[in-house]
């Protein structure tokens, strides 16, 4: 048992408690935010120092490899951006900022565990750590919509957890193990023994687990909660849900399905086909529902569903390029959606509205803010020179390699449809008449968040190669 390997998570949890303690001692909540934000350097540095190792701990339940470290760094970056976005925003729920930051850190720790586990029970527990923290965060505003969001998220999350646990139980019952690699071996052996026949419990278990994880990533038909929760939650948390929580869901899906159910030949369950169908459904439903939305948070909620569909294209490709593409896509999408939500936070702080109609003429009142939001939206469409472009090209290409032409055609068609509703916002900002000429100032911490996000969107998009290498380096763990 090597606690050193758990350093990033443990230091993060320690940081969360420290934040609560300091919060008790001071009335200056900016100090708390600064502590939470700067404190992230410790787990980040720790995670970087573990880069290149492959080691496991807790009897093989937890593993440290390039795949998990990739995601850990992604979550830490997301947490840092959320904290930057929240400094001003969190005044709305004063004096509880300390708890707010602490819960964000705990949620991050949960996600980091999710990326690191290879055992069903630990997966479930870390998923619950992340989820319960997020239920709390979603209802933090305590107004009608936010409370509704928290309750809905909690109830439906519980339903999905039940589904997930049922799937895990079935898989355990059929194979006698909760460890992913042992499950894989047990399935392999039973298939050899029974001339390729697969126990129905395994198929059912796989489907239920796909359902449970599908809820986390908001894939159709498990997406119904997303718009309500995304709209009602505090906006920085909405960014966190789309950028980090979704990535955590994908991190688990990839590991569970590739390690436990992807190492046999032939596959016991044709889950790539399942994900391909879910992918097509998800992007189509997400995009079509986004079109009529008037509230930008709700629109981006549906957009986030659609993006889950695009990312699933890479999962369905079931290849190392596919996994690399998913990792790169998640990284890029995290920065893009964080940037977009940071811009929304900045705008709603001044306008007090999230209605797209109120964005009219924004380019004249806040030219830089409008430009950043436009760049993020362009990245969401998937146009160069942004990260969204390379990400889409890469997952589509991975799918083409596996002969999934129909899915790629679906994806391209959906990208074109999606341009309509994103560009509607850009059009309003640049061509609409402003309600007043008064400029909109942006608070300093938000400027930092916006700058980091937009620079990442452009830099990772213009110089994609090191990041693609980073992503494929993570993918090698799953597909040697």
């Amino acid at each position, binding site marked *: 048992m090597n606690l050193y390997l758990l350093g990033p998570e443990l230091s993060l949890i320690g940081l969360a408690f420290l934040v609560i303690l300091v919060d008790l001692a001071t009335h200056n909540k900016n100090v708390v935010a600064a502590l939470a934000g700067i404190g992230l350097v410790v787990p980040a540095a720790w995670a970087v120092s573990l880069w290149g190792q492959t080691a496991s701990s807790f009897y093989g339940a937890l593993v440290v490899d390039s795949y998990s470290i990739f995601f850990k760094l992604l979550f830490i970056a997301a947490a840092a951006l959320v904290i930057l976005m929240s400094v001003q925003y969190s005044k709305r729920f004063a004096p509880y900022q300390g708890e707010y930051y602490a819960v964000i850190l705990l949620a991050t720790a949960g996600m980091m565990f999710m990326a690191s586990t290879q055992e069903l029970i630990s997966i479930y527990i870390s998923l619950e750590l992340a989820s319960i923290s997020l239920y709390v965060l979603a209802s933090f505003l305590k107004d009608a919509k936010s409370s509704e969001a928290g309750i*809905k998220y909690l109830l439906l999350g519980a339903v999905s957890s039940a589904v997930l646990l049922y799937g895990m139980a079935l898989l355990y019952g059929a194979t006698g193990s909760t460890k992913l690699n042992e499950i894989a071996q047990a399935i392999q052996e039973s298939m050899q023994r029974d001339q390729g026949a697969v126990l129905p419990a395994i198929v059912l278990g796989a*489907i239920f687990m*796909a359902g449970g994880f599908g809820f986390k990533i908001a894939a159709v*038909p498990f997406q119904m909660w997303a718009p309500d929760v995304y709209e009602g939650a505090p906006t920085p948390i909405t960014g966190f849900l789309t950028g980090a929580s979704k990535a955590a869901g994908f991190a688990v899906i990839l590991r569970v399905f590739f390690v436990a159910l992807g190492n046999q030949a032939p596959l016991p369950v044709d889950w790539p086909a*399942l994900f391909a*169908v879910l992918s097509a459904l998800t992007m189509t439903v997400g995009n079509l*529902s986004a079109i009529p939305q008037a509230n930008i948070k709700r629109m981006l909620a549906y957009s986030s569903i659609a993006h889950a569909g695009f990312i699933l294209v890479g999962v369905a490709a079931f290849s190392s390029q596919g996994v690399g593409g998913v990792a790169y896509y998640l990284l890029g999408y995290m920065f893009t959606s964080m940037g977009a939500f940071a811009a929304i936070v900045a705008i709603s702080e001044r306008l007090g509205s999230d209605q797209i109609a109120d964005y009219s003429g924004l380019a004249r009142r806040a030219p830089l803010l409008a430009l950043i939001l436009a760049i993020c939206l362009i990245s969401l469409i998937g146009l160069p020179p942004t990260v969204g472009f390379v990400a889409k090209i890469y997952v589509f290409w991975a799918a083409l390699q596996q002969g999934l032409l129909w899915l790629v055609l679906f994806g391209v068609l959906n990208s074109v449809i999606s341009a309509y509703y994103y560009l509607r916002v850009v059009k309003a900002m640049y061509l609409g008449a402003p309600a007043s000429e008064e400029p909109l100032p942006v608070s300093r911490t938000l400027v930092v968040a916006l700058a980091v996000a937009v620079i990442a969107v452009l830099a990772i998009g213009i110089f994609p*190669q090191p990041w*693609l290498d980073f992503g494929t380096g993570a993918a090698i763990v799953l597909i040697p």
Partner: protein
Amino acid sequence: MPSIPPIPIEMVAAIFFLPLVSLLLITFVTRTAPKISGYLTITTIGLSFILSLWTFQTMTTMPGKHLGGVFNWIVIGETDLQLGIYVDGLTSIMLLVVTSVSLLVQIYSTAYLHGDPGYSRFFAYMSLFTASMLGVVLADNLLMIFIFWELVGVCSYLLIGFWFQKPEAAAAAKKAFVVTRFGDLGFLMAILLLFSRTGTLDFQHLFEIVDSPEKAAVLGGGLLTWAAIGIFSGAVGKSAQFPLHVWLPDAMEGPTPVSALIHAATMVAAGVYLVARSFPLFEQAPQALFTVAVIGTITAFVGASMGLVMHDFKRVLAYSTISQLGLMMMGLGVGGVVAGIFHLFNHAFFKAMMFLCAGSAHHATHTYDIRKMGGLARYMPITFSAMMIGGLSISGIFPFSGFWSKDEILGEALGNGYNISYIFALITAFMTAFYMFRLTFVAFLGEYRGGEHAEGERWSGSPGHHSLHESPAAMAIPLIVLAIPSVVSGFANMNGDFARFLGEAGVVKLHWDVIFTSTTVALLGILTAYLFYVAKVIPVETVARTFPHIHGFLLNKYYMDDLYGWIVEKLYLGICHLLDLFDQYVVDGVVNGIASLTTASGGVIRRLESGQVQGYALVIFVGLVAIVGGFLVFGG
């Protein structure tokens, strides 16, 4: 003398990045401090110029070789897209031309645009243009060239329309952008064709493929010819070749420094550069090369003939530019790469100088109409001298630079059996000498006719009119500096050095018959202009009245604009009208059908998205059951 080390490739890359830095700094920092913006641009381009000199020096030590650097941009499986730099003699000459002319034009602009509200914006655009143009020159593959090619197009659009409040400027910018787009379409198709057949856009790879008979089979069946013609069509648009030349005269609506840099010395020469850069492709496609020669000849002739009758200082120069670009293309087409590029090199300096003269004259008189000028020589000796040098150079009078390169082009045409091109080029030379000296004589000799206030009547003020003066130093010095290469740059190839530098055989043939003929023709042209406009032995109006049809034909620019107007109005809009009917009754019908279907299904989805938690949970379970059902039906 201590030897200078060869330039590292990072420094070559810096030539491109420096103006980009100035663009970013102006946009984000110094936008509100115009003076600093100007100096910033001058400094960065000056540094680029110094680095270009270093590149040039390095290349002289290694004739026929090249420098290169490649950066893997993105690797997708086997296909990797690379960004790379390719520097050979041709590149380093173009670098010198672009950075030196750009530097002088920026210095000139600080005075020319003094006090303009868009001063910072101007220098930001100019920085972007210079960077993009350097990108075209440095790129080692067609895709990169295409990207920068479009970027210089955008800059040209922005700068022609710099004074966008003027409707003519806005219209001219749009026209330039749209017309060149036609050529770029062919260019893009050529790129796609080459990539789909060979899998590479890298010049060296492409050249290897077309040079080896086995590999060239992938481009057999005339595909190579089509690819080359496609590339050439891009050049036709950008270099204002017939029949896409119509945008260049209108582009004169932009500020004069822009005309000098973009529409005389660099961007319009990019087409010539592109053909020269991809010349190995053309060499293997004789029909394409023949097309280049024919289009070049027509352009040279047509451009010069229209220059005969224009009254606007800058428009005369614009038609002259078209004509000279045609001459360069003709040079390439008849097989003389060195001759064509040599003429590009010489032309860049003297034509930029003449445009700056136009700006200088305008600075004093506030008009571009030469009929309202006159007698400027007395007040603006520097501008007048520069105009004379430019005129002698473009007419091809010994020892000015134009003499040497024009002689080479004519010699190549005659030597390679393009007799018709040769004859047309001689006629062009006559017309060139005529219109250029017509311009100089009318604007600079005789009596001053009052500038912008003349309005047709004779100006009757005192001859020592106080508003007439030589331009400030920032404008005059670039004229003087540009005059130097206009006189001496022709000697660069006297021993074949220039040719050897380009990696060609440096054999210099002095074509005495050509020299004699072309010089005679040019002198005749100058003499005719003298008789018409100074000695006034032959009354101009009489000639115009004697040949009213030809005069009108030229004055109306061969009715090309009217033809295009007619095509757009009658043919194109007619087709549009038909399509509109189709759209209204067929497409809209289908779309409306789909729309009502979507609305209906949206209603269904909305009912699902009711906010009812029980309903949502139900969907999850129904979904799961459906998936299990799917597996049961289709098998796991």
